[in-house]
Structure formats: C-alpha cells, structure tokens
C-alpha cells in the first residue's frame, strides 16, 4: 500500500493520468507510455512495420488509363479496320460502275438533259425579249430627255437674254455714275485758262470713257 501511494505521488504524469489523450508523437505503440512501476514495456514499436506507405496518385491514374487503352484497342480496332475496308471497297465499286455505265441509256437522265435544254432556251428567249423591251424603253426615255433638254435650252436662252439686258443696263448705269465721278474729280481743272491741247485731251478721255461704258 505504501508503494502504491509512492507511485501515485511521485511518478504519475498527466499523460499517465490520462492514458486516452492523443499525443502529437507519431509513435504507434499504445503501450509506449504505459508505466508499470517505472518500467516501460520492453518491446519497442511493434506497429512500425505496418505504417501506411504514401502512394503516388498520378502513377495510379496513368496505369489505369493504359489498361483501358489496351482493352479499347482490343475491342474497337478490329471493327474500324473492317469499316474502312468496306467504305473503300464501296467507293471503288461505285467509281467502276460510273465509268462503265453509258448515261445516254438511262431515260431519266435524258429527260433531265431535255429539261435543262428547254430551260436554257426559254431563258435565252426571255433575255432577248427583255433586251428588246429595254431598248424600246431606252429609246422612249431618250426622246423624252431630248425634248426636255430642248425645252431647257429655250429657257436658258430666254434667261440669258434677260440677264444680258440686265447686265447691259447695269453697265450703262455704272458707266454714267463713273463718268459723273470722274467729272467731279476733274472739275477744277477745266477753265478758259486751260490750254486747248489739254482741253482736247480731256474731251478725248471723256469720249473714250463713254465708249467704254457703252461697250
């Protein structure tokens, strides 16, 4: 009894007091901290050999894919080959058939050819008729335009005459105004004392100005 008390007061650690508390230690030996009167169990870590190994998931996926491909090839490769061979044979046969068959022997094809010829002829006739109709229309439009242009020419001639008259009147009025202005400028120079030669030159200038205004 005294020994039991001694053990309880001196050697009991919290972990021993609570043996179910998980430890951060990675040891798998559940009896590692079991203390039987200060003695640890003699067998070391008996579960060390059973520690789970880390597996590479990528390797696992690759191996599974490779296996699947092998199975796929064995199950699908054969039908594809057969299918390709069948198609190739079919095309070859169709080509041989098309080369050796005379299309003229088939009534249906002849009918199609006739229909195409008829369509071509009717389209040609239709185009010719449309062209004639367009020619007539263009001729009528041309005549109408010619008449309109002649009418416009007459109008333009009348407007031109009116403008010419207006411009002529404007020119005469401008000339008279200009002459009056020149007269005012030269007003002081003309007198009985002015030499005859100078007076003659002035008169000739006046005549030239009047002739320019009239023209």
């Amino acid at each position, binding site marked *: 009894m005294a020994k039991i008390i001694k053990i309880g007061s001196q050697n009991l650690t919290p972990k021993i007091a609570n043996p179910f508390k998980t430890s951060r230690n990675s040891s798998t030996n559940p009896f590692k901290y079991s203390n039987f009167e200060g003695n640890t169990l003699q067998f070391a870590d008996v579960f060390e050999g059973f520690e789970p190994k880390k597996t590479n998931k990528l390797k696992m996926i690759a191996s599974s894919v490779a296996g699947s491909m092998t199975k796929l090839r064995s199950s699908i490769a054969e039908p594809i080959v057969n299918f390709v061979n069948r198609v190739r044979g079919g095309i070859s046969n169709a080509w041989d058939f098309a080369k050796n068959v005379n299309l003229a022997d088939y009534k249906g094809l002849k009918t199609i050819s006739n229909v195409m010829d008829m369509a071509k002829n009717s389209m040609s006739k239709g185009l010719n008729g449309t062209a004639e109709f367009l020619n007539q229309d263009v001729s009528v439009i041309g005549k109408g335009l010619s008449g309109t242009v002649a009418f416009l020419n007459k109008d333009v001639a009348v407007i031109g005459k009116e403008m010419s008259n207006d411009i002529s009147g404007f020119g005469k009025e401008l000339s008279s105004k200009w002459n009056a202005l020149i*007269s005012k400028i030269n007003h002081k120079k*003309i007198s009985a004392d002015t030499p*005859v030669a100078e007076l*003659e030159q*002035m008169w000739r200038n*006046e005549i030239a100005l009047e002739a320019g205004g009239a023209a």
Partner: protein
Amino acid sequence: MNKNVLEIIDALTAHQDNESIRVLEELGTNSPDNEVREYTSRALVRKNVHDSLKVVIINQGKGINDLSPAVAMSTINEILALKDKGEVIKILDDTINMHSDETVKENARSVKSLLALS
C-alpha cells in the same frame, strides 16, 4: 450730256485761236450725241469769227445742215441772236452764190431770209 464735256466746250469757246475751232469741229460737230453737236454748234456761232461760222454754215451735216432738226434749229436761233451779224451774212451770201450742194445753198438762203425778217 456729260457736265465735263459742257465745261470743256465752254472753255474752248473762250479761246480765240483757230486750234480751239479745230477741236470743236473735230470732236463736237462729229459727235454721235445730238446734245453735244447742238451745244458745239452754238459755241461755234457765239465765237462769231469767219472760221467758226464757216463750220456751221457750209458743211453738210453740221450746224444749220445737221440731220437733226433740233440741232439745225438751235444753230439758226443762235445765229439770229448774234449782235454782230456782218460776218455771218457774208458767209451766207458766199454759200448761196458759190456752194456746190443745193441743199446747203437752200438752207443758207432760208437762214438769210430769217435774218432779214428778224
């Protein structure tokens, strides 16, 4: 008529030399404007010298012989208005007696008649 031309004609009328008469005859009596011809003819009459009166009496189409009645009548009125009519009567007589054109003679005779009546 251009006011400037009027003043030029007046200035030439004031001159006494024959050169002014030449200018008036050449530019005035040959003008296409009736007013200029009329004013020039009256100016030549007002000069009252032989050479100026001769221009408006003996020349066909000028002065009293102008195709415009207004010009001719205006020239005749100016002649009738002259204070000294001695020179103009002398020229009229010479024209009536010696001029080759009958129309000019007839016009001179008419003017002389008017002078006699005035």
